[in-house]
């Protein structure tokens, strides 16, 4: 669209410069041949304009080598000024000073100066135009790049699978194969469900709630394999509408966090997860015992809590409430999230 408008402006300018003499042609006795000769002047202007616009300005002015730009333009404009002056003298259309004495040095000089300055105005204008066009293009590119980057960020936020989680889980499954084959088979099935969700469903912007819940279930079951039996893990969910779509992998980060800080091999530990989904609202309550010192990464996902905030802001701007924090005695951590669907 912009391109068409710009093209039209160019055409209009040249039409005006070339055709304007025709508007007062009638009755002046100027012949067509003379008009054609007059056309040399706008023709030279046209050459200067596009030479600057398309070549000199982008190559020298924008890139910062202003010196070359000035020198080349100066030489060009003086030569063309001389040429135009000589052309008009030769064709006897001595313009703009009809009374000019042909061999008066000052008149010759002012004539050349007039043409040179005239061309300089166009050269300057075309350069300004070229610079403006370039900065508009830069802005557009920047915006496009930003859009691409935001999309890439979203994708990576969605799709990161923590290699530590994967390796740790595989190691546990490996151990299970020698200890309890039935459980090992179950674990492999859970892992394959989890991977399928991560690798495929995850690529969608929105996933069905049932698929997300199944993913959480697989994750929790795999975590349970790795934990001592003394750790209490509960997962309750009441889903009114399993087909409703939600942004994937927001809740998982919270659950991972609960496992990360909530499990201690020597002290009483628990992780309780409750998810309720009504027609309009998703509520997720997570409570876990708090054991501050934990070097182990139980995350199934490379996403920290601050990134969860970012995900929520991107997917549910102003449509969520998230409360989290430690209980007064520091033994219980809870994270409650409400999302308008």
């Amino acid at each position, binding site marked *: 669209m912009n391109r068409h408008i710009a093209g039209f402006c160019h055409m209009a300018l040249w039409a005006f410069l070339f055709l304007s003499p025709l508007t007062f042609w009638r009755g002046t006795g100027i012949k067509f041949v003379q008009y054609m000769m007059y056309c040399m002047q706008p023709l030279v202007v046209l050459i200067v304009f596009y030479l600057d616009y398309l070549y000199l300005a982008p190559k020298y002015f924008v890139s910062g080598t202003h010196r070359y730009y000035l020198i080349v333009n100066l030489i060009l404009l003086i030569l063309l000024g001389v040429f135009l002056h000589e052309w008009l003298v030769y064709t006897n259309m001595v313009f703009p000073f009809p009374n000019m004495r042909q061999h008066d040095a000052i008149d010759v000089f002012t004539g050349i100066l007039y043409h040179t300055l005239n061309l300089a105005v166009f050269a300057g204008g075309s350069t300004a135009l070229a610079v403006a066009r370039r900065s508009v293009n830069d802005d557009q590119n920047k915006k496009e790049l930003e859009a691409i980057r935001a999309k890439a960020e979203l994708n990576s936020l969605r799709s990161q699978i923590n290699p*530590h989680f994967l*390796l*740790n889980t*595989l*190691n*546990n499954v*490996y*151990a*299970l194969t*020698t*200890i309890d084959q039935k459980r090992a088979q179950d674990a492999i099935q859970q892992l394959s469900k989890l991977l399928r969700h991560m690798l495929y469903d995850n690529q969608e912007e929105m996933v069905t709630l049932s698929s997300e819940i199944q993913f959480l279930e697989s994750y929790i079951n795999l975590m349970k*394999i*790795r*934990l*001592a*039996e003394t750790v209490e893990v509960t997962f309750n969910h009441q889903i009114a509408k399993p087909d409703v779509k939600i942004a994937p992998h927001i809740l998982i980060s919270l659950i991972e966090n609960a496992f990360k800080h909530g*499990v*201690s*091999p*020597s002290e009483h530990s628990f992780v309780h997860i409750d998810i309720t989904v009504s027609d309009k609202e998703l509520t997720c309550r997570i409570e876990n015992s708090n*054991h501050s*010192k*934990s*070097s*182990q*990464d139980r995350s199934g996902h490379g996403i920290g809590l601050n990134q969860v905030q970012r995900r929520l802001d991107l997917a549910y701007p102003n449509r969520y409430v998230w409360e989290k924090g430690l209980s007064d005695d520091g033994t219980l951590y809870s994270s409650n999230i409400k999302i308008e669907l």
Partner: protein
Amino acid sequence: MKILCAIIDDEPLAAALLEGYVRKISYLKLVGVYNSAITALKDLRDKDVQLLFLDIQMPELDGIEFAKIVTKGVRVIFTTAFPEYAIEGYKVDALDYLLKPIAFEDFEKSAEKALEWFNMKKKQDIYLRDRFVLLKSDYKLVRLNLDEILYAEGVRDYIRFYLRNGETLLSLMQIKKLEEILPPPEFIRVHRSFMVHLPDVTVFEHNRVMVGDVSIPVSERYKSRIQDYLEQHTLN
């Protein structure tokens, strides 16, 4: 001889797998399996244990820290899923490093390594206690009192011992093997072909040491070994 060992891994299954492996190896005797590093630390204080199969990434206390705390005689074999900890593991003088998932064959190799080390250690302890070794020289088995040795020089496949009474003794042995038998800090290797009895060194110079009036070269590679000794004992 049985090696007393314990397993410490916060993941019950990982520990259970190793437990099964340990029971398959006749010379390993299990004294404890722990899912908590803290519990292990408390419990093992009252137990005789020589070898630990120790996970690195654990809550509460990580394996590297754990290894730094345990008594010096206890050797550690690290078990972890993450090779990036290997370098740190070797810094705390780990005997070996097992990458999860651990196959029995790899576990067995590590255990053999431990057995070798403990056997060697046992011999070394006996040599040090009785202050002599028996070695073959000229088709005879001769007694060599450790206190007799001034220094030893490797000559091709042989080692020539220079003794306090001025005599020498030639035996078919690699200097690397000798290094395992004669323990530091009393005996220290200072050069590709020299070991010295440190109490007999009277002068330390930039690239040589003097034993009596004999000059023995010290090469760059082995310099660090006497460095500690020098730092500990230098008066000014």
